[in-house]
């Protein structure tokens, strides 16, 4: 049995850890509230955007628009949104797995756009091409950042460097449920839009004409998808970290209770032993 001093030392070290996890949990809870409010606000914008794009697409019929057909290049750009810091449970590895365990993708064809340091580290370690790293973007998601990123990607797509563009992120359902998602940004996924959108308004007119309108609206649509993913990912990150820290705190509690029991036993053991020794000594004298 470990000595009383050892047990005491171990217990106080775990108590220290518990204090840290407790504090981190509180911080994540506050951050989560803010991120959640952001995510909810951006949802209104995104939904209106989705409806409009949907109504345009359902009107133009099957046009050969450059944003609606895949490019010829086999190369794919993948935006991966992870966190900058760890201690968030499976949050980062779940998103990364979406890309590394994809059934048909070849490592050589992928160019990773890593939003968040954890993603960059993991992909660089596994030999993927990390084209860009934007760690500061997810600290405080701004629409302007999403605009710049989507502009760069659309240019590369137009130049023919990438045939397809994907987005991997963790979607935020509620505080306890987050789901890693892989989304195709370009070419625009018509089936998905048409199947889930509402019935289009048949009498809507467009100025400029439909095709030109698509040219201008699709980049905005892509930007809103990226921005939406950023705010949702931040909310999920804090949710995941809150859960991870919550379970770490209760685990620490369990260990502390266990150690307290062991400590008391050891103390009782040493008292019993001392008593036995005293009695034995007294008997020997008598």
């Amino acid at each position, binding site marked *: 049995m470990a000595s009383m001093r050892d047990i005491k030392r171990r217990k106080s070290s775990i108590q220290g850890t518990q204090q840290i996890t407790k504090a981190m949990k509180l911080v994540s809870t506050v951050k989560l509230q803010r991120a959640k409010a*952001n995510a909810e*606000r*951006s949802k*209104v*914008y*995104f939904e*209106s*955007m989705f409806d*409009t794009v949907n109504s*345009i697409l359902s009107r133009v019929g099957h046009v050969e628009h450059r944003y609606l057909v895949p490019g010829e290049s086999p190369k794919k750009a993948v935006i991966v949104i992870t966190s900058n810091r760890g201690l968030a449970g499976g949050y980062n590895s779940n998103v990364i797995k979406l890309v590394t365990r994809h059934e048909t993708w070849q490592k050589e064809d992928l160019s990773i756009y890593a939003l968040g340091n954890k993603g960059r580290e993991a992909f660089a370690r596994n030999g993927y091409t990390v084209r860009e790293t934007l760690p500061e973007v997810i600290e405080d998601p701004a*629409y302007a950042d*999403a*605009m710049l990123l989507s502009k760069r990607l659309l240019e590369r797509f137009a130049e023919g460097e990438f045939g397809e563009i994907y987005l991997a992120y963790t979607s935020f359902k509620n505080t306890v449920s987050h789901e890693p998602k892989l989304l195709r940004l370009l070419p625009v996924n018509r089936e998905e839009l048409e199947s889930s959108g509402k019935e289009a*308004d048949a*009498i*809507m*007119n*467009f*100025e*400029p004409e439909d095709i030109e*309108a698509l040219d*201008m*609206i699709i980049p*905005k649509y892509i*930007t*809103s998808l990226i*921005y939406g993913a950023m705010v949702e990912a931040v909310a999920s990150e804090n949710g995941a970290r809150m859960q991870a820290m919550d379970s770490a705190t209760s685990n620490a509690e369990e260990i502390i209770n266990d150690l307290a029991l062991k400590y008391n036993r050891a103390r009782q053991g040493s008292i019993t032993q001392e008593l036995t020794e005293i009695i034995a000594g007294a008997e020997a004298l008598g």
Partner: protein
Amino acid sequence: MADNQNFHLRIITPDRLFYEGDVDMVEFNTTEGEIGVLPGHIPLTVIVKPGILVITEKDGEKDAALHAGFAEILPEGITILAEIVEWPEEIDAHRAEEALHRAQDRLASKTPETDIARAETALMRAMARIEVLK
């Protein structure tokens, strides 16, 4: 024809609801030119170009600088999905002036590498900001 009809304006940006309320008229700049929208307009979707947004309410006018986005016009209201829109009090006059000069310089001394479209957009934005402050 639409005197007693409420004309509802909603301006949504990615991170906030910029404006919501019943209005008499909305004027702004689009890729096809400046337009003024009254209640009962035919359904129309237009793309926004940098310019001044004038909201005419029952008791006065409100101005804002509207830079990018698009608008969905329906007979009973307008929804503007604005990427960038600012009230006058949110604009830094000094910064706008600087941006104006920068864009003018870039257009004046243009080389083949100059991104003219970008400089022009920057110029229009700066002009809209300054105009709305007057």
